């Protein structure tokens, strides 16, 4: 357990979600263990006592998340409502409290996966593994980032930006990730054997994480080789895909895709429609933010634009389509593949970016990076235009 606690603490730091020495993780089997000593432990032990869980995470987010979350949680806000579709689906809303008190934390965590303690940090839990707590924490940071920058655009348009909002915005700019000028060189086709294919998929996943183009290390990656699609497994961490790649026969003659990514059907249809072989999917932040931006304040679909928006939308040359995770009636498996037919990438509104390339991941990665860069540039042009 201790090893797992240390692993996720280190991941939080390497992903820029917390500063070194800050994450506090506790794991409970028959005994309770912590990754380090901390004065907060007695309160958190009471939280363990009040909930049926096996892990708990408490940390102050690193900048820019810290200022952003403090800003969103200020005033008499009791909960933050995320607007990106992934967090909406899995987290519903993000409760906020003021005091670091076990009874208040327990009350909120009885119903939700996270609680934000204003100015002090975020607490999340897991019932199976500290990995769940890590994912929930990361989702809070990601969704608050997206919400803050989305609200900033909206309020610029309305002319209702507050000073505090401006201050937090400027501060956040100082802490944005830098993207490399050139994408890294990835393994190139042709691949001689299955082992090379596994290695290429794992490498593409790891690079996507290292360049911070995903949230919670999630996203998905696939490569067609011969008559098989090699795809990352559901809930796999893109930086640790070794052993977590499913080989799925294209003729559907085996059900091994039952553990494959929830976007397996979309990947298969993209392959069929485009003839491409490599697919990358990440959640780069400005692609998500820009995909949600809309000037029509009184639109009848407000609140459900991520699944119902009927407007044809583009950011530069990149189509933006509605659709939610999976295969439901509004599933992105219906909207994404056709849009990919003539494009190097497609953004699913409020969700993330999919890119493709012919034989290996080099093109797909280049597209992922350049589309995100374009979205970021477009974003910062918008307030100026407004």
């Amino acid at each position, binding site marked *: 357990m201790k090893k797992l606690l240390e692993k996720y603490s280190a991941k939080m730091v390497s992903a820029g979600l917390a500063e070194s020495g800050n994450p506090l993780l506790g794991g409970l089997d028959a005994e309770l263990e912590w990754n380090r000593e901390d004065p907060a432990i007695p309160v958190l032990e009471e939280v363990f006592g009040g909930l049926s869980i096996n892990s708990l995470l408490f940390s102050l987010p690193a900048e820019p998340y810290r200022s952003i979350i403090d800003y969103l949680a200020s005033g008499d806000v009791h909960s933050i409502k995320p607007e990106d579709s992934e967090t909406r689906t899995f987290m*519903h809303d993000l409760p906020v409290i003021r005091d670091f008190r076990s009874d208040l934390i327990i009350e909120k965590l009885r119903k939700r996966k996270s609680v934000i303690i204003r100015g002090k940090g975020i607490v999340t839990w897991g*019932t199976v593994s500290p990995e769940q707590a890590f994912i929930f924490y990361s989702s809070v940071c990601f969704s608050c980032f997206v919400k803050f920058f989305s609200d900033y655009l909206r309020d610029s348009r309305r002319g209702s930006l507050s000073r505090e909002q401006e201050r937090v915005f400027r501060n956040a700019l100082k802490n944005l990730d830098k993207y490399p000028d050139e994408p890294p060189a990835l393994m190139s086709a042709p691949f001689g054997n299955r082992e090379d294919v596994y290695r290429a998929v794992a490498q593409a996943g790891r690079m996507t994480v290292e360049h911070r183009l995903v949230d919670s290390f999630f996203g998905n990656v696939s490569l067609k080789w011969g008559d098989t699609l090699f795809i990352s497994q559901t809930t796999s961490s893109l930086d640790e895909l070794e052993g977590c790649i499913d080989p799925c026969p294209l003729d559907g003659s085996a059900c091994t895709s*039952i553990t494959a990514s929830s976007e397996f059907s979309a990947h298969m249809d993209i392959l069929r429609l485009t003839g491409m072989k490599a697919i990358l999917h990440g959640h780069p932040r400005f692609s998500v933010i820009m995909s949600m931006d809309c000037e029509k304040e009184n639109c009848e679909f407000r609140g459900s634009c991520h699944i119902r928006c009927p407007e044809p939308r583009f950011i530069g040359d990149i189509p933006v389509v509605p659709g939610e995770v999976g295969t439901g009636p509004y599933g992105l498996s219906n909207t994404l593949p056709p849009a990919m037919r003539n494009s190097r990438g497609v953004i699913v509104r409020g969700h993330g970016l999919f890119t493709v390339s012919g034989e290996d991941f080099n093109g797909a990665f280049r597209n992922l990076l350049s589309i995100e860069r374009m979205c970021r540039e477009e974003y910062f042009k918008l307030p100026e235009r407004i």
Partner: protein
Amino acid sequence: MIQFKTLLLKGYSYAMTVGWGRILHVDLSSGKHRFEDIDPDVSRLWIGGKGLAGYYLLPEITRSPDDPALPLIFMAGPLTGTPAPASGRICVMSKSPLTGAIGDCSVGGGFGWQLKKAGIDGIVITGVSRRLCGIEISDENVSIEDAGRLEGTGTNEIYSRLKDKGSVACIGPAAEHGVLFSSIMVDGTFAAGRGGLGLVSASKNLKYVTVHGTGVVPVHDQEKLRKAGEDIRRLIAATPALTGEHGLQNCGTAACYDLISCRRMMPTANFRKTFFPPAQSMNSHAFADAYRPKRYGCKACHVLCKRVGEDGTHLPEFETMSHFSALIENENLSAVTEANRICNEAGMDTISAGATLACFSEISGEKLTPARITELLLDIAAGKGEGSELGQGSLRFAESKGCSDLSMSVKGMELPGYDPRGAYGMALGYVTSTRGACHLRAYPISHEILRKPVATDRFSFAGKARIVKIAEDMNAVIDSLTVCKFFLFGCSLEEYSSVLSAVTGTETSAQDLLAAGERIYFRERVMNAKCGFTSDDDDLPPRFFAEEGSSGDGIDIPPLNREDFLEARSKYYRIRGLDGKGIPLENFAEELGLSELL
């Protein structure tokens, strides 16, 4: 009855009105029935389904399975009959004739749905009818009818004859012939399979129960229920194991067959091996090619994981496929469907039947041909020849041959289609399960194999004691809400607590429900302890600690390390509030507000 006032004082209740609050009691000895209005405090505490059924079983648990006073209980949940996703199931409970422990099954079909529409939450059946009988319920009207004409009739035939009367739960000839793993079949194809509950019904001379209801189950806040249901459906749509191209929706539970095979944990040759090479040609795809199936399923479910072929053949579930192929080393696809048909028609648990044949094959050294499989199953159902011995289950059969170690069972109940050497949480879950070797109580396959909610290391016991305990509590809640466990691959109690609040009008949370689940599961340990179960019964057959599985494809399947296993089990005992022998601790019972149970 136990007084629960102390529990309520301790704040363990969450105010909630669950179901109609109405239980039908039928005494087959006197032929009389009555309706009971349940004490609202009791239904709040125990939710419904498994939780509430256990309330009625507890005082009678030390009785013999054929004691007339032992109740056979059908209990719907608070969500049954509403549009809440996958809520159309029902709990059937009694003492298991196979194990002597608590025996309960969650079963689909329309029985719970009709019962709730009839204005009834559950049925508690006691006594013995002088002649073979059936209970017929139509809204308020309850009658006990002569069923002599149905003696020896198969379950599908009974369903065909009685379906005009509503939903039908019945037993087949296996129960009438004393098979210890006989099932109760609902609406022809849905099985309350495990533990021999069909035999309890047979010992009461009860062949069937039909129920038809015309009422509308009240929902406190329809709009809130619609939204909460939408949240669940969205999560289900994002879950490949359920709605993915090769998930349960598209391939049925047969979808697991390839996965378990390529994880090298498919029980083969009575668990002597864990890999069955012909499995590749006996998978879901092969069945789909051979039978061109359509899907169907339980009430209020949109996943619909059951399959019926073009010619009307009901296709086997994963467990049945696995045991009637790999476990008995049968390579013939149609022999699997035929075995499934015989078991369902005769009313026998397919898992115990397959595992008992595998045990027989190992002990006798006989290779089972398709014809022999059919012959043995028909003999078991008819209580004929070797069949009468095999109908007592693998443990009694193996004991009678002086080799009890060759029964692959826990507490006398046979292991299902996941080899414990391939998933250590499953190994622990098999022994802590209160009803014997059951994969569904803790369902570690969810995280160890299907990666939900996140993946755990399947070859490690680290952390598994608490994971198993929490999952048992969670699944006890799910069986009390009488919701389908498969839905938990995609969502959690967080979403179902919103559904429950919408239906009942009282706020509750995932953690409130987990606390209720902990009480329900602890009470089952109490019941088993009263029946004499101890840590000696919480153990796996020696084979799993001594023999390795079939390693290959870069996957090692070593024997389980006994010390690690015992350490994990003792951690589980501590977490569950049991002493070193697995007996419930008084102080823990007190903490849960359950000291009056001991």
